[in-house]
């Protein structure tokens, strides 16, 4: 266009093409609504596909291969030292992203979802302005806000293209394999990226403000992982803050404030992974009745509706756990509510999976939460050293843990650490959602030999009769 401003009308305007956004758009289209999806990227996928979950898992899989090849030695197979070709790795990663992104484009086309590349800012409760697009305004009947979040930084630190101080997105670009890498933060992103770089040969130092890692998970679940990274990472500094940070041509100079013997150190690169900030600024929310809380998250009810009844918010920007699978569901809920269905974001368990080595996965109530709520629970653990399958794979550090309501005998939570927990956790999620009793799990036949048996057997323990463990004494 070269002149004037064109306005388009749209039944549903979805702002942001991440997992939440495209799930919402697709669901709305399937329910017969006219959908326009606007994203700054040309293709849907968002942070998760282009700069998050997918690329990181692509790299973590490679890390796992390297580790397995190494472990194989003790089992009688010796591979040569891995030759790492960053160029090919990047190409492979890009190929993974492209094939998934192109798939989403096709799905959008086939569903009649209109994709527009551009930036959106509200101009009221029924109008949004588009920047850098052929259409300059959209009049919508409903809008679904799915703008997501971006990595938080430290005061005065800005992430830039060439900088040595990276956010998770930059770290995934794998510009090089730094000799030394400092990671600031103790969450799953910090641990996963550390695992990748350590596997590729970097000397990783981890600094975390609190006294522990992976605070969302129960300590006994995180323990095997921590034991492992204490080996693979160079150092871990607990209760440590970054006092000063200075980027030079050759490296990043850092002074630590905490339990560090050498408070002043220099690293080739640094990754800041201390959390994420919602993208709720500069999108014209002030022109709507949408309420944003003091941390920038958009307030929604269980129908994902904001305080502006035409506008819905889903995914990271709507707060809650910043996870793609939570955004997926919220997106569907918003679309269904708009289509007049009695849908609501009502769940009993959102699974969390950390793709480190070993993996950590949990869902529902954790032991810690139960204590906080001073709620009486019973906890059962199944150490994998009793699992045949775990033994065949030499992954004995693993453990399966179940949280049970002592009165109702209902399963409240499940936690697993070890290999392939990513696939096993879903059984726990279903059990909790269905309100299953420990007995239901115990009576469900699990294939042998598999790691999934451990889920059945941990329930058996509760009932006092696990096959591969001696029954506890004095247990009713």
């Amino acid at each position, binding site marked *: *266009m*070269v*002149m*004037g*401003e064109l306005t388009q009308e749209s039944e549903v305007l979805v702002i942001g093409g991440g997992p939440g956004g495209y799930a919402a758009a697709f669901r709305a289209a399937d329910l017969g609504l006219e959908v326009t999806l606007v994203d700054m990227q040309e293709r849907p996928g968002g942070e998760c596909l282009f700069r998050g979950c997918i690329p990181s898992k692509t790299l973590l899989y490679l890390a796992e291969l390297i580790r397995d090849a190494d472990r194989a030695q003790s089992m009688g197979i010796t591979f040569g030292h891995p030759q790492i070709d960053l160029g090919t790795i990047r190409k492979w990663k890009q190929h993974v992203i492209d094939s998934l992104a192109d798939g989403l484009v096709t799905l959008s086309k086939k569903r009649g979802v209109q994709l527009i590349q551009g930036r959106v800012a509200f*101009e009221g409760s029924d109008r949004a*302005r588009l*920047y*850098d697009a*052929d259409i*300059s305004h959209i009049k919508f009947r409903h809008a679904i806000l799915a703008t997501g979040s971006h990595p938080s930084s430290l005061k005065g630190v800005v992430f830039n293209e060439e900088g040595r101080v990276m956010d998770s997105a930059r770290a995934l670009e794998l510009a090089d394999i730094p000799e030394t890498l400092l990671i600031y933060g103790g969450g799953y992103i910090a641990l996963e990226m550390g695992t990748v770089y350590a596997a590729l040969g970097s000397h990783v130092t981890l600094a975390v403000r609190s006294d522990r890692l992976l605070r969302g998970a129960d300590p006994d679940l995180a323990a095997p992982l921590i034991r492992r990274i204490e080996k693979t990472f160079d150092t871990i500094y607990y209760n440590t803050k970054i006092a000063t940070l200075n980027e030079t041509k050759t490296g990043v100079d850092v002074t630590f404030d905490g339990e560090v013997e050498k408070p002043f150190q220099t690293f080739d690169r640094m990754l800041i992974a201390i959390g994420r900030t919602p993208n709720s600024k500069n999108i014209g929310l002030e022109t709507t009745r949408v309420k944003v809380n003091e941390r920038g998250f958009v307030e929604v009810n269980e129908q994902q509706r904001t305080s502006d009844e035409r506008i819905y918010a889903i995914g990271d920007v709507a707060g809650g756990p910043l996870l793609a699978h939570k955004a997926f569901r919220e997106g569907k809920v918003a679309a269904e509510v708009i289509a007049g269905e009695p849908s609501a974001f009502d769940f009993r368990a959102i699974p969390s999976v950390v793709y480190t080595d070993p993996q950590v996965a949990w869902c529902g109530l954790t032991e810690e939460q139960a204590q906080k709520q001073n709620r009486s629970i019973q906890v059962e653990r199944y150490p994998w050293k009793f699992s045949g399958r775990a033994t065949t794979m030499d992954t004995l550090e693993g453990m399966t843990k179940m949280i049970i309501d002592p009165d109702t005998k209902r399963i409240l939570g499940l936690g697993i650490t070890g290999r392939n927990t990513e696939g096993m956790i879903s059984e726990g999620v279903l059990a909790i959602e269905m309100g299953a009793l420990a007995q239901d799990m115990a009576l469900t036949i699990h294939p042998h030999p598999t790691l999934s048996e451990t889920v059945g057997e941990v329930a058996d323990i509760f009932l006092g009769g696990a096959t591969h463990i001696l029954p506890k004494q004095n247990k009713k």
Partner: protein
Amino acid sequence: MPRKKINLPYNVEYLSVLDEKGTLDEKLEPDIPEEILLNLHRAMLLGRRFDERLLSLQRQGRIGTFAPVTGQEAAQLGAAVVLRPTDWFVPSFRETAAELWRGRTMESVILAFGGFSEGARSEKKLNNLPVSIPVASQILHAVGIAWAIKYRQTDDLVMTFLGDGGTSEGDFHEGMNFAGVYQAPVIFVCQNNQWAISVPRSKQTHSKTLAQKSLAYDIPGIQVDGNDVLAVYVAAHEAAQRARTGNGPTLIECVTYRMMMHTTADDPKRYRTEKEVETWRKRDPLSRFQKYLMDKGLLSDDQIEALAEEIKTEIQAAVDHAEDQMKGGVDPLDMFEHTYAELSQNLIDQKEELKKEIVAMKEKNDG
């Protein structure tokens, strides 16, 4: 029956005085009074900053579509600077910087791009025509004015602007031909900014240069580095001498570049590469000229900074002033004014009709 080469009186020159870095070719340096040099620099800086401000206003939806001039400050100002107030200035639509030089206020520019006909109004009478959006259509008006000047035997002249695209329009060739026939005191300044929206100069015409189009009409033509304000000045100065001394028209091709989009509604990424833009960014007319002035000791970084501050406040004042007027709203009934010298009965009736409607609307909205 001979067959021989016809020697045409003119050939096409190329001129550049400052190279891309801004280093001077002494023997070509024009003798320009310091004062003019500094005013010229100020005008270029103003043109640049004002353009940037307009863009941000447009991006915030505070004004409508407009055509940016960034990158072409030298091409238009280097030429316009030779004009006297009594001369006539006949712009196309991408000469905002030159328009300001010619006395148009920034307020009026903002108002016009804000969709307010008030933007056309001017307190003092200036020998300027308003922008002419239909490409090349203004050229013939320039020739007409030039003919009239000649008829009145003053030594004023007309300077008209067009773009590379404009040279494809019939009006351009008709204008050149008339000017040649009547030896009218007119200067055709072609800002060859390489792009007519998405059509590159190479696809616009088969000719090697645009300047050579003058040959067909026996008019002197010269191609200059349009990002070299000194070269533009020299060419314009000579052309002015020619016009004022009754020696007819001149065509000046300023080779420059449209650094921004065609208009704010256009997306150049669709048809040209960022790389190309980058190579031209290195030839920025403003920094080149600044280097020249610094080498001459006429300008320092501090002075530039001070000047920029001064300009910033000036622009802010204009924006505030214009936006006050815009926020004040407009009387729709004004649309009937200036259709004719006086309202026909028909228009009086229609004006009354609209008046009633507006009242009815108001009541509807209030009640």
